[in-house]
């Protein structure tokens, strides 16, 4: 299968400042990808480069086998057949829903256009609002109109810039699920940009973590969480604590809590000092365990507690514990490690 979208060493600069640096990834037909990163990491710029709103300072972009952008030449944005959902939706206030959605269908005949508009509105569940004006709709409805408008011309690729950031949390979760279903049902290839990892995990087949203009890792959410490629990704995705350890064999590490063996990254030699990432779900509460840790803090989350624990050495770790185990602060509790994925990085000189 050939890639639908391919970025080859793409760079972008504003003046002297490099905003995107040597970025490469590929996206297959029908996949949904997500660029994830904190604000100012360059993720929106990448999206705008793909859309054709920013010139490239280096590299090339290919879409469906043709080169759409390079340093020397680029296909104008309006000829790329790339749809976009803007962060602020950018609906046209002077047009009603039907006219908004039909806006990009100028080439179709009248009856064809109307049929396509109604079909897309049906897909996003807004067929009843065809005559309404944008200001008469709720935020979530406006968002879906924006999606319908971008989908109507059947773009080869759909870009979504922080599509849910203007919505409140409950709506965000529901809509991200709905949007994923819509995109999948249409077989749309899409890239969205977000700073919210829950949104990225809920929506995307592939997630690209960006930091200071660099792509840190390009992988499915599961891999990103359990096999982070860099310390930054390990830190940025999910929660956890780094504890010191020593490599004792080709597959094993000794920690304060004992020796653990699994697929240790190959670049380590025996005797190397490493930091091992312990996720809250790696630390299991077990009253029978001989190892205990003192409760330093706790957050009740309904179905579980998140405990901050202190080991004998003073090292702190996080533990996710079923909500029936209500322990007081200062109380020692038994713990053991369940390390299915051993994530280790060379010790940083502190």
């Amino acid at each position, binding site marked *: 299968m050939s890639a639908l979208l391919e970025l080859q060493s793409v760079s972008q600069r504003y003046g002297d400042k490099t905003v995107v640096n040597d970025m490469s990834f590929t996206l297959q037909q029908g996949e949904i990808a997500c660029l994830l990163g904190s604000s100012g990491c360059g993720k929106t710029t990448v999206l705008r480069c793909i*859309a*054709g*709103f920013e010139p490239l300072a280096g590299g090339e972009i290919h879409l469906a086998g043709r080169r759409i952008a390079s340093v020397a030449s680029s296909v*104008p*944005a*309006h*000829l790329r*057949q*790339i*749809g*976009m959902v*803007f*962060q*602020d*939706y*950018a*609906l*046209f*206030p*002077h*047009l009603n829903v039907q006219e908004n959605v039909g*806006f*990009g269908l*100028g*080439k179709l005949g009248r009856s064809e256009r109307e049929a396509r508009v109604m079909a897309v509105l049906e897909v996003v569940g807004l067929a009843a609002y065809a005559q309404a*004006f*944008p*200001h008469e709709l709720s935020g979530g409805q*406006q968002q879906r109109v924006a999606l319908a*408008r*971008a989908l109507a*011309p059947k773009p080869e690729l759909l*870009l979504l810039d922080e599509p849910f950031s*203007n919505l409140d949390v409950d709506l965000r979760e529901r809509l991200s699920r709905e949007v994923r279903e819509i995109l999948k049902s249409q077989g749309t290839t899409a890239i969205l940009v977000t700073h919210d990892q829950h949104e990225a995990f809920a929506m995307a087949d592939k997630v690209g973590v960006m930091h200071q203009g660099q792509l840190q890792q390009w992988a499915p959410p599961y891999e990103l969480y359990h096999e982070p490629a860099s310390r930054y990704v390990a830190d940025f995705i999910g929660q956890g604590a780094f504890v010191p350890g020593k490599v004792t064999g080709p597959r094993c590490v000794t920690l304060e809590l004992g020796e653990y063996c699994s697929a240790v990254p190959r670049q380590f030699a025996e005797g190397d000092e490493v930091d091992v990432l312990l996720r809250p779900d790696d630390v299991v509460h077990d009253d029978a365990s001989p190892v205990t840790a003192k409760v330093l803090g706790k957050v009740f989350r309904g179905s579980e507690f998140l405990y901050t624990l202190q080991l004998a050495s003073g090292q702190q770790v996080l533990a996710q514990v079923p909500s029936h185990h209500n322990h007081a602060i200062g109380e020692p509790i038994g713990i053991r490690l369940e390390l299915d994925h051993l994530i280790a990085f060379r010790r940083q000189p502190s």
Partner: protein
Amino acid sequence: MSRLHTLVIPWLLACLIALCTIVPLGVVMLSALTPDPAIWSHLIEFTLPELFKNTAIMLLGVSAVVLLLGVSLAWLVAVYDFPGRRLFNWALMLPLAMPAYVMAFAQVGLLEFTGPVQTWLRPHFDDMRWFPEIRSSWGLVLVMSLAFYPYVYLLSRNAFATMGRRALEVGQSLGLSRSQGFWRIALPMARPWIAGGLILVVMESLADFGTVAVFNYDTFTSAIYKAWFALFSLDTAKQIASLLVMLVFVVLVLEQRSRGRRAYAQAGRAAPQPRLPLAGWRGWAATLAAASVLLLAFVIPMLQLLYWASLDFANQFSSDFLGYAWRSVSLSLIAAVLVTAIALVLAYLVRRQGSRAMRNLARVATMGYAIPGTVLAVGVFVPVAWLDNQIIAAMGWQGEVTAVLKGTLLAMLLAFVARFLAVAYSSVDTAMNRITRSHDEAARNLGYSGWALLRRVYLPLLSGGLFTGVLMVFVDVMKEMPITLMTRPFGWDTLSVRVYNMTAEGMWDQAALPAIAIVLVGLIPTILLSRQRDVA
């Protein structure tokens, strides 16, 4: 507190304020209900066809040119980057400081047969008949457009700045090129703001008195003046004024209609967008376009005025000039403080009462801004003259006294209250709305009430709005010509009256110094406004 305090007094005050507008307007409109057949047959036969034709040419011409200049300059400055953009961004508003009648005589003086342009060209050509006559309808349209385009520029620039480049991007993501995006998205989206600016321009053109006087171009305003001061027929003036008011209302209704169901609240929020650079010759072409408008609409007329003033400065800067200046400043200051104080009372009443009826009353009271000054002058003079006669009859002064209030500052100030209350009210009301109910409650909770509340909370929070109100009314009265001219006490000439008298004689150089003084005062709010709205 008694019912009298809580109910009767607020309403009494509000009605009294509203009467300043209702009475003049009512006097004029009632005359439309009791038409005099003799006057009307004369009007229909000799006057009205010309007036309607002239007004139509003026409005259509000015609207077209103003749209072209205002919208295209706004688009350039808001969306693109080119050499000098930051300067043009605010400098293109400078013509707001120059009243249209000043622009008018400066341009006529420049371009007429004896003016410097034709004098300079003449040796180079055998025949100068190709040079267009400035004293014509196209000359008037050009001058008014140069004076009024900033209204359209200002409003559409703000609209384009918030959504211009975004509109292009949305268009591109839907397969539209940039130029298609401008015509199909940016322009329709900015339509309400463009239309808002255009309405202001149409109202200013309809109300204009000084410019058409310089051009000797008869419109409703000059016809009202002539009927009163040349034919001495106040009744004819009233009848023409009623027609002008109806015209104004037609424009307002059309504006309301055109909006329809579409509310143009912006959907979503837009982040500030970086501008598109215009490289090479395109950038310099944009600079040239903006610079030539700025030169024609401000720099050149201003230089012409300064040149005239310098010719005979020692003579002109005399006690006469200081007298005009002193009367202008004192009149403007009294009017500004009075009008702003009344606006404060009205805004406070609306806030405390909060009822729909009170808000509507405030709306009526501030309606005068849409009414041309010539109409208000007639509308104020008639009831004041009637009151004078009543007083004289009641006191038995017949024969000894002919005027009590007529031709006093008081009558003039009443007309200014009607005309400019909206200016002060909008800034005071904006400031008042920034004081939330919780501010009120927080202060009460901390033990302040009554005067202490007013002094410690309201006045500090309102001071900015009050200052703006005083400043805006001050400048407006300074520039105002028809009301001052038609209702001033005998011999009470101000700067704008002096400009009128001199330009009526074609003595441009004599009008230059008072005109410069008016422009300098007008620059204050223009610069404040442009600095404030400088969108990064």
